[in-house]
């Protein structure tokens, strides 16, 4: 009998084998790792279930548990792909990127990048960006809490203090640069655009215990090639996102770096020399960000 470590490694290899336990065992016999594929040396069988059937229970649970966890994390991606394509995508993903973290929360981190290079990218070019948006929303949902600066606090600042204070972004903000208008697709699925086959929304997919593989794809329009910048953030406990202009992206990056307001104005002026009223634009931005609750750390700039 193998020792405990060898036993665990063998069981892992068998229950994660892409074609099932029997095929996995036969492959190990072929490569000379196992003497016999019946696995009787490892697992006891009985009249109800042989060793392979017993290991298959774990193999099935392994895949379906991880697939269902990803279906919860990427509900809009599941909706546009439909259950069958999502199932196949996740099969490929888990083979390429098996879980290495103690938490299932991390399982989908590499899915957007994986989708960039998956054959599905040719079929649904926006899929990777939709996954990027969903991951960013998940990321901010449990990001660190912070006390945002209010519009009133900014308005109350004396003019001489405006020059010396730096603003920062709360941790629960992500800025995305996407190649496709994934926001439009997300919105359509969220609103429950009926598909040709059946009326099926993501919410229904997640809130029922229906097997995700049964879900037909939601038909959406748009999502074509279109450079899109998005801000994803959490206000209180609500997760939100919106498209932003390149100027706002630049300004947010400067704020993230802790620029003072004069530095911010100077850098924006240098980036947009033809813009006639930068001060007014900056004030509008600050007002919007404060209303959205994404500014924090109003602190003295040393």
């Amino acid at each position, binding site marked *: *009998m193998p*020792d*405990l*470590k060898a*036993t*665990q*490694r063998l*069981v*892992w290899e068998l*229950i*994660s084998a892409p074609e099932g336990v029997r095929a996995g065992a036969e492959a190990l016999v072929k490569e000379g790792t196992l003497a016999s594929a019946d696995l*009787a*040396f*490892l*697992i*006891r069988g*009985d009249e*109800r*279930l042989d*060793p392979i*059937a*017993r*290991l298959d*229970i*774990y193999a099935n*649970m*392994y895949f379906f*548990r*991880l697939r269902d*966890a990803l279906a919860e994390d990427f509900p809009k991606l599941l909706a546009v792909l439909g259950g069958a394509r999502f199932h196949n995508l996740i099969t490929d993903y888990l083979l390429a990127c*098996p*879980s*290495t*973290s*103690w*938490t*299932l*929360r991390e399982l989908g981190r590499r899915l957007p990048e994986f989708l960039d290079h998956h054959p599905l990218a040719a079929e649904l070019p926006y899929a990777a960006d939709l996954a990027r948006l969903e991951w960013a929303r998940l990321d*901010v*949902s*449990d*990001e*660190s*809490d912070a006390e945002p600066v209010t519009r009133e606090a900014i308005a109350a600042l004396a003019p001489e203090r405006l020059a010396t204070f730096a603003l920062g972004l709360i*941790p*629960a903000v992500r800025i995305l640069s996407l190649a496709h208008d994934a926001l439009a697709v997300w919105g359509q699925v969220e609103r429950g655009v009926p598909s040709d086959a059946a009326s099926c929304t993501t919410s229904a997919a997640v809130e029922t*215990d229906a097997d995700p593989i049964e879900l037909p794809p939601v038909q959406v329009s748009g999502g074509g090639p279109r450079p899109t910048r998005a801000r994803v953030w*959490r206000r209180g*406990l609500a997760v939100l996102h919106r498209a932003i202009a390149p100027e706002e992206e630049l300004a947010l990056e400067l704020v993230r770096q802790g620029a003072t307001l004069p530095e911010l104005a100077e850098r924006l002026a240098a980036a947009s020399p033809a813009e006639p009223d930068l001060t007014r634009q900056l004030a509008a931005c600050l007002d919007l960000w404060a209303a959205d609750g994404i500014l924090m750390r109003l602190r003295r700039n040393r």
Partner: protein
Amino acid sequence: MSRPTSLGHGAGLRREHFERVLSAPTRADWFEVISENFLVPGGRPLEVLRRVRRDYPVVLHGVSLSIGSTDPLDSGYLSRLAALAAEVEPAWISDHLCWAGVGGHQAHDLLPLPYTEESLAHVVGRIARVQERLGRRIAIENVSSYLTYADSAIPEWEFLRAVAERADCGILLDVNNIFVSATNHAFDPLDYLAVLPPERIWQFHLAGHSDHGAFLLDTHDHPVPEPVWDLYRAAVRRFGDVSALVEWDGNIPPWERLEQEIEATRRQAAAATVANA
């Protein structure tokens, strides 16, 4: 070893019931939460847990300790668990007698161990290190299983008792898991209860399962079935007033239905106690 005072009858806190539990009093005496769902930097889960903790005792129940794995213990996981425990001050912390991954890969499952002297020494040593890191004793739960290793030489109940006694830890006794494994491996569940030391039993789990013909699957998606109630009453007769908790993780019903199951737990415990008097 003295065991913790009973917390009464509670339920596993699931996301579907957050709003209801926070908005009005419930008939649960206490809640158990899945530790990993709250090992996050911030946001809604932690906010909910803090609010629930103001009104109820809470137990942290983990699924990722992987106490039986031959991979090193995850110090990052233990640090985060210790930090959460410092904030929440749980009545106790529990996890499973299993392994969840190996070679750096995670199956996110509760995989059974071969019940051998090698496994026993391995698990006992690791529980000692975990208890030292957390600064407290933990409770270890028996898992449902669907296979027996060819080299298993110790009955599961003897193995569990030896783990608890040698590691000086508590036992979270999952009554449904005993029933499921007893059916799948054809042993008498009462043998299981007879061997375990009462002072080690900190908590009971109760749940439903699914019948797949050739085997039972521990799915937590049904009410507690009658044979599991029978075994629960036998456990109460043997172990006395122990904290009991209903788990319901699939086909999750409205909170009011879960409360009925908590009430059923109370009634069953009372019936067993009367019969014992």
